[in-house]
């Protein structure tokens, strides 16, 4: 277990963490501000990747595909909000779960019809190919570093947006007490729509960035959705800061656990047993973490005020 290996896995963990943050940020805002459980948030991540595939095919440029895919993801998010979600804000959580589950089924299958069931991909842009040398000559892909940087930059942007702008102030107020905000004369429906579209775009952004390194396939958003839910629950629902901290924790714990758990168990028990127990514990590590956090802090690490 060399230092280089640990460094590589820490970077991988950070990269998973920022991806999860991008998905979780939209989810926690929609949840916090509108009290709306959107299971279909994961398919917006998937859609981002698929749109990038198509736009890459049309333009041949990663960055053009990125911009077009973001715009298309935003437009699609607003369309979904208009057609389905806005009719569900006053309903109870179970109705929202059922309807958004219907959206997942429809879009997963729709993607299979339009793009086929086989995994797709598009290449890493020329500019970001190659590796950055780490210690003792071991390289780390530039693209993955760029993902981490882009994710962190988005986090900073989001922080400025939420804490330093008027819209951000309304979002924070909405997460604390939406009724009061509406009573003060704010068009809460419009605010919902803005938050929703923005969340859809962030999830799409995560999907576009993930496309070149994970395979683009139907259902790719489902696993991410569950992880994003774990993140927002650990972080405290409605809290961007909580989502950020929790996403990095989950990314690191999951990646490092999968890499080193078996070796750690080998130090404590017979290799055969460790080979069996290690991967199992590594897979459930984040869930153990979540159960532990909820046991000691039943509303997450950074509970939004007033909730």
């Amino acid at each position, binding site marked *: 277990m060399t230092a280089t290996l640990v460094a590589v896995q820490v970077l991988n963990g950070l990269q998973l963490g920022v991806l999860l943050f991008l998905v979780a940020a939209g989810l926690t805002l929609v949840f916090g501000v509108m009290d709306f459980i959107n299971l279909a948030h994961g398919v917006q991540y998937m859609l981002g990747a698929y749109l990038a595939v198509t736009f890459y095919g049309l333009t041949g440029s990663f960055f053009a595909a990125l911009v077009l895919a973001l715009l298309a993801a935003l437009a699609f998010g607003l369309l979904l909000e208009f057609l389905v979600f806005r*009719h569900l804000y006053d309903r109870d959580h179970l109705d929202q779960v059922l*309807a958004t589950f219907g*959206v997942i089924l429809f879009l997963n299958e729709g993607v299979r019809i339009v793009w086929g069931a086989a995994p797709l991909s598009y290449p890493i842009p020329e500019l970001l190919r190659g590796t950055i040398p780490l210690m003792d000559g071991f390289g780390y892909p530039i693209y993955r570093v760029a993902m981490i940087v882009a994710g962190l930059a988005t986090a900073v942007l989001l922080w400025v947006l939420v804490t330093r702008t008027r819209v951000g102030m309304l979002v924070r107020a909405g997460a604390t007490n939406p009724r009061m905000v509406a009573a003060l004369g704010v068009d809460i429906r419009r605010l919902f729509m803005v938050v929703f579209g923005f969340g859809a775009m962030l999830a799409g952004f995560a999907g576009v960035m993930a496309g070149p390194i994970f395979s683009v396939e139907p259902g790719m958003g489902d696993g991410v959705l569950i992880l994003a839910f774990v993140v927002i629950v650990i972080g405290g629902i409605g809290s961007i800061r909580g989502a950020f901290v929790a996403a990095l924790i989950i990314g690191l714990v999951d990646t490092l656990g999968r890499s080193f758990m078996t070796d750690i168990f080998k130090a404590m028990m017979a290799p055969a047993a460790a080979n069996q127990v290690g991967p199992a514990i590594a897979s459930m590590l984040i869930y153990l973490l979540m159960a532990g956090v909820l046991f000691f802090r039943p509303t997450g690490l950074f509970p939004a005020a007033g909730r």
Partner: protein
Amino acid sequence: MSVQASTAGRIGGTARQIAPVLFILFAAVPALATAADLGFATQLVSRIMIYAIAALSLDIILGYGAMVSFGHAAFVGIGAYAVGIASAHDLWDASITFPIAMLGGGLFALVTGAICLRTRGVYFIMITLAFGQMAYFTASSLSAYGGDDGLTMWGRSEVLGYSPLEDETVFYYVVLACLTGCFLFARALVGSRFGRVIVGVRENRIRMQAIGLNPYAYQLVAYVIAGMMAGLAGALLANHTEFVSPSTMSWQRSGDLIIMVVLGGTGTLHGAVLGAVAYLALEEILSHVTEHWRVFFGPMLILIVLFARGGLGRLIGGRGAGG
């Protein structure tokens, strides 16, 4: 108190109309299937009724107690694994394995419920998911019992050395008997003082505490009962497919169970049965029409939510939304 009384009364009234019809139809299926030369129908409806038992157990805690368990498939899976692992050790007698399956489900519910019930709302949903996932990954790591690939049973449970369950029709009626028993038990349970306390805690926890009851204890008992019932469904499921796999416990299966209950209408019992029938039958029928059946099924779910408030049970029962 008047709220609870009227809730219980309304549910009783609707159930009286729908439930007997459902069960008579169930009883007629094998004969109809033979007459119409649709042999597979018996097996399909067996599967539907097994899921109906699991959905029923979820409705007790979700519908009446507002405890939305997103890890309910774990109880089903534990029941299935209890029967599967017993068969791997050449223990086939249902009089031993079925109680083990139910105890297994109940014990897991007791341990996890004691922790989960400290949380409320969405946090409860997520912590039950966490325990469900732990069960799933534990099952995946049981390499002695098939691990990821699952465990083939090479036969069905026996009773006193005989194997009557090998006959599809006999198996069908055993499942129907289990479903009927569970339904009657659940109806008696929610109509009892215990059931009213569970509904009372859902409506106003503090008031229940104020009149001297311990909501936590009542909820935990309900959770354990649901776990045991789901364990029974698991034992039947293992016998139905003669195969046990971790995928039985995946979060998608837990989601399916929630969908069934909400689709049929929460807190009605017959709604859970109806939801299981509608969900699995639609899946079966649509998947024969087109391989892309989900493209039609998804929008149907959305339309049901938007226009049939309170689920199919209330739609058919002619009652408005509420409860």
